[in-house]
């Protein structure tokens, strides 16, 4: 048995994973319904619900920005953590490289989302 005293840094990623999971459970299904079913098929919602001017206005409002940011970023952290651990179950064990790839991609998406949300203006 190896010494087991080194504090794990997992809480950072586990926290992001947990937050993303909570958010995915609350918003994921309804987002799939709105963006994938209701709007394209014009069910319940009006045809222009996700039109360019509406979505631009949404992304320019501070509350819309915040919502878009946490949904994109936290969903991503959740997904990459889950993929990393599922790979482990399948026998692909997380070395430093794989961790960097998974969490790095999540970080990249987070920063890209932030950059785009700032770029669309207020």
């Amino acid at each position, binding site marked *: 048995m190896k010494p087991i005293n080194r504090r794990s840094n997992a*809480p950072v990623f586990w926290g992001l994973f947990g937050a993303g999971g909570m958010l995915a459970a609350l918003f994921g299904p309804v987002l799939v319904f709105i963006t994938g079913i209701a709007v394209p098929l014009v069910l319940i919602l009006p045809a222009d619900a996700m039109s360019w001017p509406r979505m631009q206005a949404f992304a320019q409002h501070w509350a819309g920005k915040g919502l878009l940011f946490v949904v994109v970023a936290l969903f991503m952290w959740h997904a990459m953590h889950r993929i990393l651990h599922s790979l482990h*179950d399948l026998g692909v064990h997380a070395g430093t490289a794989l961790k960097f790839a998974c969490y790095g991609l999540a970080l990249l998406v987070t920063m890209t989302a932030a950059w785009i949300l700032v770029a669309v203006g207020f």
Partner: protein
Amino acid sequence: MAETSGNGKVIRVEVLRYRPEQDEEPFLQGYDVPFTDDMSVLQGLQYIKDWLDGTLSFRWSCRMAICGSCGMMIDGEPRLACKTFLRDFPAGTVRVEALAHFPIERDLVIRMDDFLAKLERIKPYIIPKEERTLAQGEYLQTPAQLDVYEQFSSCINCLLCYAACPQYGLNPDFVGPGIMALLHRYNADSRDGAAVERMEIAGSEAGVFNCTAVGYCSEVCPKHVDPANAVNQNKTRAAGDYFLRLVRPKGGAK
């Protein structure tokens, strides 16, 4: 043993054999065991040892699911041999193997050194928050305080949860479900004051974050302990400790 062969029922018991001094690797050996409906798998093994093959080795003691000695893989599931009955295998055959994820010492006997070393490390005993002299009397506890940890104190160290845990199978450095249940049993005890010390293990790289919430550990526990719950509660607590140490004035941080 006339009384056990009375009703003419016979079951084929396939046993994983391994005698390190003569076997290259483990292999299955079959025995035809006459049985009655009240016979456990353990009694079946005892019949084999007494009447068919005296060289078979397995651990047992109490025969009543409290000593935790006879954990083995029965038809691929981690179970206590004394709590599993031969009548429940209507196909007329049952496979008995050493507990998964542990090195085999001999036949159905596994080496539990790893578990025992981990058990010692978590200090599985109450370290009083405040020492009381005899004159001050006993350490009192309310029924509500007892409820918080009582189920976790039912652990009998049978290791079925370790054989069930895919993460322990992949990485034996993981402290594992049973140890986390016991660690939680003492940390959650109102009389105990050593939680900070034990949380160093729960929050370490060998600790709770190795768990991926499969939950099979709690399913196989013969004493209805819920190790998965102990792990989950301590994930939250270890994450809290991790972030709070950054804002605590002094101490705590490591």
